[in-house]
């Protein structure tokens, strides 16, 4: 009887230990979600400026949108995040819808400034013009300007 009691006491004492041993371990915390990398910056035309004179850095010297009939007309196009070989196209049109000129140019670097210019041996017809810029064939901006007799 004494042995039985001792045995019972031992078994009862062991039960909590068994319970602990068999207790299911808490699941490990989920791994911290990695911050997704920012999406690659999109190539973009950030600014278009017009003028009649350009510096070595391809920026027009005095931005304006009104020109005389004998002026050269220059568009400086600022670009960012462009891949090597990216192409810019400038299409110049008159108010009638006529295409005055269309020129494509590979962008030298990113960020970059690309200048497009048009000159006319005879006087520019007076009126409203527009230069439309596309980047890799996708419209990326435009700027309107006037030619007037001065």
């Amino acid at each position, binding site marked *: 009887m004494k042995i039985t009691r001792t045995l019972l006491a031992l078994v009862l004492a062991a039960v909590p230990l068994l319970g602990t041993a068999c207790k299911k371990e808490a699941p490990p915390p989920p791994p911290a979600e990695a911050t997704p990398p920012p999406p690659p910056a999109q190539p973009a035309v950030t600014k278009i400026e017009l003028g009649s004179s350009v510096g070595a850095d391809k920026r027009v010297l005095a931005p304006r949108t009104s020109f005389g009939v004998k002026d050269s007309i220059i568009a400086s196009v600022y670009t960012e995040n462009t891949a090597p070989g990216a192409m810019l196209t400038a299409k110049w049109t008159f108010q009638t819808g006529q295409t005055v000129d269309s020129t494509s140019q590979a962008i030298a*670097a990113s960020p970059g400034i690309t200048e*497009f210019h048009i000159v006319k041996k005879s006087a520019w017809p007076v009126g409203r013009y527009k230069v439309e810029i596309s980047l890799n064939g996708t419209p990326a901006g435009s700027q309107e300007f006037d030619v007037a007799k001065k």
Partner: protein
Amino acid sequence: MTPDEPLPDFSDVEGGSSSAAAVPGAQNAPRTYEVKKGDSLSKIAKHVYGEAGKWKQIFEANTDKLKDPDKIYPGQVLTIPDA
């Protein structure tokens, strides 16, 4: 233009282009012009602004370099203020 007028002729238009790397932060830097032989402030103003009469704007932006508007020298780099 009226509908009866012939469309203007753009066959004598010449276009061109070139490209360069942009120096970061240079977008807002002052614009400059290097004086060439035969230049005068009025000639530069005509070239840059399309109006020779704006020479005074260039002179006033460069009083640190120019004491006399009639004396500019090839190689001088002038600040060109916005029109």
